[in-house]
């Protein structure tokens, strides 16, 4: 058949695929931030009805009405975010499904929205090419996002929120931004959808639709922006393909959909997009420039921390002078990590003060402390497991990344140059900790010791004045431990104060300028390594009398 006839007959189908792809992008952005939000159909409904009503009741021109519709959806996302943003996982999913259903029931019951029969009489104003133009723009905008500060923040938040906070990422605001963008994209999809056909009704926007959009993302995969598009195109094509092959029954399509979904989850968890070749990450040569840092002074004053009836820390006062290394030792359960959590804002103290360069930072949230110049590694590794070593370190630099997004949109060379510089500095750090040659390896493919080293590199990436290392020598043999001592001294010499928690006494004694010993939440000794190692209280605490 002729090309014109082909496009006529399949106009609806192409339009639907485009709309589905827009919805797919809208769920991509929230899933990329690790949020299981299923509110897209609801946002789409708000935008769709707003746009149509403005056109039919108020005589607005279509482009204006559509824009207002999108704004309405974005506003709804903002309002919804207030109560919902602290929900995680399944709870967020349930709440957003609930939101979608409230929207649907409301639309069903109000007269102005035409009730269950919906709104008719709105002539189509949107052509297929409009939809694809918008889709192209939105896709482009998202595609250019990945290596920017926001893009890296999204991945970091998805991987591990606590670690992300310690890299200076304001997790709350990142999740909010993702939510708003999702609302805008879903609103775009809804408004275009409403003006593409003759009719909209509440049934198009309920829980079924919300879950269908989720399946786009799962089948296509969310590790890259075009993954959900693949899912959307495939699933939207499916009914037409089946019908054209002579299979008319609706249940066959459902069986196929469900089976594909199940098979993908079981056997291809990163989705169909993971089958496509991906551009290899370019690893530049290390750079030579050093950024100067000012070492910070740390003082805790009578810090205590209780959990229910348990006293984890009692009246702990330690002092770390700028540029020195303070070793923090004590048996398991002595409270070392609790103290560090108190210092870094993860679990603030019940009483007492934490002072950095004389400033009281006791109740500062973790991400702010990180921007103040505090960085740490974690006892229970919090490496970003799905990201390469290089990306792990780059995630640590988000606070220092220049604003390259707009330059990236215009493909300006200066953006590429800046990213290259950042990457080169990241490679330098990886070399420093002993991970040369492993930059492109995924976090979870690195050995235990290498993951520990990676955390150190990531911590250094934000150029901190105070670095806290929590059991960095765990899993290292004698040689590696000796190299670690050298690394710690070098870190201090390049202008940083270091707190070192370690069980490996040899490492602590050789790397530290001062040592504080904790047992049962209290400081039982503080002094130079020589003073500490002969203190009877310490020997007893460690080896057992």
């Amino acid at each position, binding site marked *: 058949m002729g090309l014109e006839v082909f496009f006529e007959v399949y106009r609806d189908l192409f339009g639907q695929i485009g709309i589905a792809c827009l919805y797919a992008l809208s769920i991509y952005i929230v899933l990329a931030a690790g949020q299981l939000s299923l509110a897209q159909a609801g946002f789409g409904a708000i935008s769709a009805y707003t746009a149509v009503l403005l056109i039919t009741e108020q005589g607005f021109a279509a482009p204006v009405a559509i824009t207002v519709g999108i704004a309405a959806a974005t506003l709804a996302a903002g309002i919804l975010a207030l109560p919902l943003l602290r929900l995680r996982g399944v709870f967020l999913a349930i709440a957003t499904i609930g939101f979608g259903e409230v929207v649907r029931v409301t639309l069903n019951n109000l007269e102005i929205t035409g009730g269950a029969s919906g709104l008719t009489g709105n002539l189509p104003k949107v052509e297929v090419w409009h939809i694809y133009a918008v889709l192209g723009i939105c896709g482009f905008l998202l595609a250019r996002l990945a290596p920017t500060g926001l893009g890296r923040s999204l991945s970091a938040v998805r991987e591990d929120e606590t670690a992300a906070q310690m890299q200076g990422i304001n997790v709350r605001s990142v999740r909010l931004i993702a939510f708003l963008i999702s609302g805008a994209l879903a609103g775009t999809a809804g408004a275009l959808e409403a003006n593409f056909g003759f009719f909209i009704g509440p049934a198009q926007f309920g829980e079924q639709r919300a879950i269908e959009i989720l399946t786009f993302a799962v089948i296509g995969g969310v590790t890259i922006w075009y993954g959900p598009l693949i899912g959307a195109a495939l699933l939207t094509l499916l009914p037409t393909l089946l019908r054209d092959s002579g299979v008319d029954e609706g249940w066959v399509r459902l069986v196929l959909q469900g089976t594909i979904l199940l098979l993908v989850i079981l056997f291809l968890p990163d989705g169909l997009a993971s089958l496509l070749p991906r551009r290899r990450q370019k690893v530049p040569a290390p750079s030579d420039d050093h950024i100067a840092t000012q070492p910070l002074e740390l003082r805790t004053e009578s810090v205590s921390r209780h959990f229910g009836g348990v006293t984890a820390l009692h009246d702990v006062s330690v002092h770390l002078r700028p540029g020195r290394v303070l070793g923090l030792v004590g*048996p*398991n*359960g002595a409270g070392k990590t609790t103290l560090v959590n108190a210092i870094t804002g993860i679990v603030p103290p019940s009483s007492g003060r934490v002072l950095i360069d004389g400033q009281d930072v006791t109740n500062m949230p973790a991400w702010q402390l990180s921007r103040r110049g505090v960085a740490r590694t974690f006892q229970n590794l919090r490496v970003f497991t799905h990201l390469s070593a290089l990306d792990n370190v780059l995630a640590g630099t988000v606070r220092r990344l220049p604003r390259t997004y707009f330059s990236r949109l215009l493909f300006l060379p200066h953006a590429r140059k800046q990213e290259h510089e950042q990457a080169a500095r990241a490679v330098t750090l990886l070399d420093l900790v002993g991970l040369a040659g492993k930059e492109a390896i995924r976090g*979870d*493919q*690195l*050995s*235990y010791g*290498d993951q520990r080293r990676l955390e150190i590199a990531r911590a250094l990436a934000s150029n901190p004045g105070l670095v806290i290392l929590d*059991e960095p020598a*765990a*899993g*290292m*043999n*004698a040689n590696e*431990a000796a190299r670690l001592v050298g690394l710690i001294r070098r870190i201090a010499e390049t202008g940083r104060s270091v707190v070192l928690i370690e*069980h*490996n*006494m*040899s*490492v602590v*004694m*050789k790397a530290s300028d001062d040592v504080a010993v904790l047992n*049962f939440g209290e400081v039982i000794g503080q002094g130079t*390594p020589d003073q500490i*190692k*002969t203190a009877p209280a*310490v*020997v007893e605490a*460690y*080896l*057992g*009398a």
Partner: protein
Amino acid sequence: MLEIKDLVVKYGQAITAVDSVSIDVPEGRLVAIVGANGAGKTSLLSAVAGLVRPFSGSISLLGADVTRLPSHKRFASGVVLVPEGRAILTRMSVEENLRLVTADPEQAFDRFPALKARWTMSAGTLSGGEQQMLALARGLLSDPKILLLDEPSLGLAPIMVGQIFELIEELREAGTTVLLVEQNARKALTIADYGYVLDTGKVVLHGPGRELAEDDAIVDAYLGGAALSA
């Protein structure tokens, strides 16, 4: 009683926690495994108890190969683990915790009189030392052929630690076979018949308990550098 031969335990492809370890636990003896954090001690016990599948190597109990036996069957054949952190069910009472392993939980009263006072109270209200006692009681009432103890003194006050070790010694005297993992190296090696020192998944030293306890080489291997003297 228990023979571990060339055991390798990996997590994913990249991390080798236990690297070709061979350990023998003769019947009625107490064998101690010491080593720094991350040395592989807990992974070793988990593999023996059937909680993780070893990559290669074998585990035999009384001559029978149990390497592929699932954890509940291993428990039934007498391999009983008291895990690190105790794994007590805090939402159940003391009595219920024991009922999980025996129809006659009151047997516990003999050795563990302290539990009687808390019998119907939720196990979450017990102190750390009492919880450890409960975990040990649970282990013993499971009718073990071999008792695997993972860091029983972890996080306990010195007095409780003393009591726990006294109890472990009593068990040894009563003929229970025990495989003990401890970070409190000196105490563990002093009461052990035989000891192994683990470092990054490998056995670096082994010998009779008393000898190792007084050996400065373990101070080196375990604590790194003769920095501390008793």
